[in-house]
């Protein structure tokens, strides 16, 4: 009969209406500022720079190789190289970014900078409450504002950070073994042996790159790695 469906529908909504008062399980709303859902581990929003150790300036992993600046699709990364050098995590002398700015209003959260970075220096943050009451100021974040500790990285992306740490530790161990071997064979030749490998970022890239697909079990890094080396080759 005409109108049967309407009655059925009305009964259904009435059931929902009454049920929502009785059964708290029905209410799916999360009261946002007070309650929050845990973020999925793969969530990402805006890049940050990782540093090791207590001092953010000394511990920055970034060596100002400018690959991310070149790869960035909306060109929102601005890097100035430093004149002097400082030792990186393996102890090699590297230049460091004197200026590392990201324009937050331009960034599109594509994660390409993270994928191309050979030094695991830039990662994606999960912070999403970025609203301010200032419309035009504070859009260009400098390296101090971008710096986050490795512990923070472990907190937001535990699995990924553990992999990265393992990789870095392996690299460091390899470098140390190399240094030890160099020190053992010709005691005086150690500094020159280190120097060529550390002179350009590209050599380090070549050294690190192959280890990435071999080590990384994470699927998202595997497809992104093959296209990266040829590009670097062109850049050189």
């Amino acid at each position, binding site marked *: *009969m*005409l*109108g049967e469906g*309407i009655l059925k*529908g*009305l009964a*259904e*909504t*009435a059931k*929902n*209406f009454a*049920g*929502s*008062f009785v059964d708290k399980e*029905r*209410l*799916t*709303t999360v009261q946002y500022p007070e309650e929050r859902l845990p973020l999925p581990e793969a969530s990402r929003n805006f890049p940050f720079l990782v540093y090791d150790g207590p001092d953010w300036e000394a511990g920055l992993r970034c060596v100002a190789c400018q690959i991310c600046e070149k790869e960035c699709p909306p060109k929102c990364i601005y890097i100035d190289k430093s004149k002097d050098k400082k030792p990186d995590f393996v102890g090699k002398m590297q230049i460091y970014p004197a200026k590392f700015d990201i324009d937050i209003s331009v960034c599109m959260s594509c994660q390409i900078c993270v994928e191309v970075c050979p030094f695991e220096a830039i990662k994606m943050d999960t912070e999403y409450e970025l609203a301010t009451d200032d419309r035009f100021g504070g859009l260009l974040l400098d390296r101090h504002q971008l710096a986050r500790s490795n512990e923070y990285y472990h907190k937001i992306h535990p699995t990924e950070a553990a992999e990265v740490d393992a990789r870095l530790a392996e690299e460091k161990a390899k470098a140390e073994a190399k240094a030890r071997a160099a020190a053992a064979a010709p005691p005086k030749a150690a500094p020159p042996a280190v120097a060529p490998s550390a002179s350009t970022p590209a050599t380090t890239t070549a050294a690190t790159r192959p280890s990435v697909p071999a080590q990384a079990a994470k699927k998202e890094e595997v497809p992104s790695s093959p296209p990266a080396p040829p590009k670097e080759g062109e850049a050189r």
Partner: protein
Amino acid sequence: MINALDQIFVLLKHWIVGFMPEALQPFVGIVLSVVAIVVVFPGLFALTTVLERKGLGRMQNRIGPNRTGPYGILQPVADGIKSLTKEDIVPVSADAVVHFLAPLVLVVVVFMGFSVLPMGRNMQLVDMDAGLLFFFAIGASTELSIFMAGWSSRNKYSLLGAMRAVAQMVSYEVPLLMSSVVVVMITGSLSLVKIVEAQNQYTWGLPHWYIFTPWGCAAFLMFAVAATAETNRSPFDLPEGESELVAGYFTEYSGFKFALFFLGEYLGMFSMSGLGTTLFLGGWSAPLAALNFVPSWIWFFSKVMLSICVLIWLRGTLPRLRQDQLMNFAWKFVLPMTLLNLLVAALWRFMGEGWLRWVVCSAILLGVYVVAGRTGMKRKHYGPRSYRYAE
């Protein structure tokens, strides 16, 4: 005491008017009544918005607004402040004068409809001889303000929304009138006060409301459908279908004018509910003779709010109709049924007292309803769409 409570507003008005000089008294009396209407119904509007949002939320297993004030009851205040402080934008190409006039005309016209509704014993602004006719004449004028809004905005969505709204309102005005005419036939008066008085009688403690007769029940159902369409409520909310037309005819309105349209829409809903209550649900009369001690205006407003709740319930349940379904339903089903109902009401009138007329009238209405519902509203199965030029 009970009588005083029932007539409290009337007495209050007389008391205030008593302070005025003789010459001003009729004028002040009218102003007081108008002020009461202009205060009470927007207040009811504020209440209804939060009720609607909470109710719809619960039907969708959500909580609804709960931030402003305890349980979100101050939400209408927040909405009001927001719409008052928002920038009032008039599109450059819009027809400024008509664009400005449209919301005003709508709200003024809708307010006028309340002037004939009896909201309690002796509580009506004017007891007009042709009250029902006045109500429909006023209701017909809202269409023009909607057209004005849609046309003056110079926006395709607005114009489409306005055309849809006007077409829909013109189509559903016919069944609306036809279903109300039945009541006039039986009562023998167009005055809404007389219609309520005719229903304010009791046999065995049960009221003589028209909804409790076969023709009254049928007329009430069709009146409800037509009134829902007339006030552009879901499921007949095609004129402002958000998924198709942004906001329909008031797309280009912002700030306070938008709020006026919103107010006009809800006031239209109230006046339609009030009219339905007056015609079929006994107006201000109590549902049981034993409950007559409760003031009459409480009954009127609780009936109106009850019908508003049903409208909200319907909105939470039914999906929007398509334009052709809407028109087919109006012209091919509701209108013939109202015409049949006219005949049934005449039959009822002339068959005299007794159980026979109940059986005959119910049988005719139910039989035709079932048959017409089976054949007339048969679901059409549309094949894949074909294009004449695109392929």
